[in-house]
Structure formats: C-alpha cells, structure tokens
C-alpha cells in the first residue's frame, strides 16, 4: 500500500473527499495529512528495535587509523571487527588520547573511533536503519514524498498503523466520536506488529494472566 493509498484511507476516515491522483493533494489538510503520516511512520519505526529495521554494513578500517567517517545510517546493534565483538563506550577521550583498550569503540563528531592497530581491519556492522521508507524500486529513504513511496513497516500493519495514527494525531481530541475507535485499532495493529515481528520464539511477546 503506497503513500497515496494511505492518504486516501485517512481521507476516508476523516470523511473528506478522496482523490484520484497525487497532484490533487493541494489543500492545507492534504499537506497536514502527508506530514503527519511521515511523522507517525518515523515514530513507530524508532519507538522499538524492530527486526524489520535491521541492516548489515561492512566497514574498512585502514592500518594505524583510530577514526573513520560514520557511514552507518542508524543505531548500531553489533560491531564485529575481524570476527571479534567490539563494545561501545561513551568516553571518546580514551581514543583521542591513544589510551583505548582493545575490543571497544566509540563515536565523536560523526566519526567512529577504534583502538589503534598496525593492521588494516574489516568491521561488520549490524544496525537499525533510520530509513523508514522505500520507493517503488525498493531504495530506502527517510520520508514518503511521491505517490509510489511506501512505509518500511510490514504490509499487513503499515496501512492500519499509519491511517489510524495519522487520524489520531490530526484530530488530537479524545472527545471526537471516532477517537476511541481509532485508538483501539491503532493499538491492535501495534500489538499485532510486535507479536509477528519476532523471529526467535524466545523473543516473542508473552501475555501472562494472573489470578488474585
């Protein structure tokens, strides 16, 4: 379901007239809906460590180099340098002063900092991407801007989450007649997304019922 489809779903829920083409979205309400859809999409993606956001990247670290440009577009989950797991530390001074121990890394001023080594190294990075949108060709981007763009949120849930989340944000009034319905549907879709996005059974959400 692409950007235009989501917009038309929102227009339907808000009892506005739906449009046939992206070029018809010229009113202020249309612009607000487009903006809010992107905000909701970004919020949902960054609110959890969703598996569907995980990406992998390779980084080349030259010899005798302690800092390289941070090309990772997102939050790093794992940093494996030549097969060894490196842990993140906040203290960048250790690296700037040349006193950093092995197996740690840090970042400063959009640079990744590593302990100094005479050998060149290869790092494998697993990270949660910041790109929450993909275009018609599958290229990832940060925002939906054209009709064929779509959310990176899995398809069964993206439409429901973005539609009801946008309506909730647009009306922002709990006394509005459909507010409770939208909220219920939004929460339901979020819970379903959470339950189905876990790959490992041990990581799946569990509901415990307690008897008092």
């Amino acid at each position, binding site marked *: 379901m692409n950007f235009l489809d989501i917009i038309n*779903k929102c227009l*339907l*829920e808000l*009892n506005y007239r739906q449009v046939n083409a992206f070029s018809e979205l010229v009113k202020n309400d249309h612009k607000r809906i487009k903006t809010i859809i992107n905000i909701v999409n970004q919020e949902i993606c960054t609110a959890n460590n969703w598996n569907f956001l995980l990406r992998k990247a390779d980084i080349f670290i030259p010899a005798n180099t302690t800092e390289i440009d941070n090309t990772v577009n997102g939050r790093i989950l794992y940093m494996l340098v030549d097969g060894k797991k490196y842990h993140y530390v906040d203290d960048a001074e250790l690296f700037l002063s040349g006193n950093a121990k092995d197996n740690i890394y840090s970042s400063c001023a959009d640079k990744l900092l590593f302990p100094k080594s005479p050998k060149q190294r290869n790092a494998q990075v697993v990270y949660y991407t910041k790109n929450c949108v993909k275009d018609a060709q599958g290229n990832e981007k940060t925002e939906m801007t054209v009709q064929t763009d779509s959310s990176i949120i899995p398809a069964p849930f993206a439409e*429901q989450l973005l539609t009801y989340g946008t309506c909730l944000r647009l009306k922002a009034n709990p006394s509005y*007649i*459909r507010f*409770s*319905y939208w909220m*219920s*549907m939004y929460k*339901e879709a979020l819970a379903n997304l959470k339950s189905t996005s876990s790959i490992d059974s041990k990581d799946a959400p569990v509901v415990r019922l307690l008897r008092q």
Partner: protein
Amino acid sequence: MQNQQFSGISSSAVTPQINYQNILQQLLLSLAANAQKEQLVQQLGNNKQIQQLISAINETNKVNQTSNAVSQAQVPAQNPLEIFNQENPGFFDKSARVDVLNYIRNFDMDKDEISKIAKMIETLENSAIDGYLKQTAHDKTLNDENAAAKSKLTAYAQNSAIDGNNNKVFTREEIGKMSGDEFVKNEKLIMEQVRQGLIK
C-alpha cells in the same frame, strides 16, 4: 297629677322630643324638691317663658325628624350586591362565577355574606388550579417513565437483534465510509467488535 306624669316618663331613650322634655321635667322636679315643690312646679308650669321654650324645642324636634325622613326617602337603600361589585369590580364577571351570582340573587344576603361566598369561590378555584397542576405533573412523570421504558425496550430489542445476527461484522472499509451520525448509531456495536478483534 303632674308628679305621676313625670314619674311615668322615666326612660330617656325613646325619642329626641321626649328626651328634651324629660330633661326639663327632671330639672324642674329637682328644683321643686329643693324648694317649694308643688307650688313652685305649678308656678314654673304656668311660666310662659318656660312653656314657650318647651314648645320651641318640640317644634325644632319635629322639624329635624321631618328633614331626616325626607333625606332618608331621597337616598335609596343600596343593594349589598352592588356594594360588593363596587368594592370588587368584575369579580362575578367570570363565566363560572356568573352562575353563583345568579344563584345568590335569590337570597337576601348582606355584604358580609357575599364576601364570604366570594372567598369560598376563590379558595375553590385555587384548589382546582393546584389539583390541575399536580395532575399535570403526575401525567408528565408517567410520560417520562413510559418513554424511558420504551427506550429500554427498544435497546433490548436492538441488542437482541445484534446478538442474534453475529454474522454482521463491520469491516474497516464500512466503518470508514460511515458518516458521523451512522458511526454514533453503531458505535456500541463497533467498539464491541473491536474489543473482540472481529473487525478486519
């Protein structure tokens, strides 16, 4: 003889003419008792001046009585009903009160009795108004209770229809197309279906 005449007229509350004469006679008697009694009485009785005085007083009394009678004849006696109407204009003009007026005309009632009847009429009318208002309030209460009972029955009927029609589950598309009024109308059912996870 004269003593018998004087003693026979002992009451002073008969007529004004006798009053004046009586006073003079008693005055003469008291004078006679102190002096020479019968002789003096005879002398006084024979006194022309006193006789003229008595006759003048009697004449004056007659004139006064005549004038009073004439004045009473000139001013006709007022009907108590008319007096009441002057004091309470339009009291008996109202439709139902006319019947009471026609009825009491047959009786020789004075003004106080008419006033009492008027008060009774007002009391009866006020009590009738109070009774009507109470009856109206009671009717309204009954109507409200009937309306509440009807709405409950309607709600029960609707709920039973919903329960009996489990196959009718709204879709998100249908809900999205609903107008505000339609949504309000079906809100309870929609939210129940949302809670049950039926809406897809």
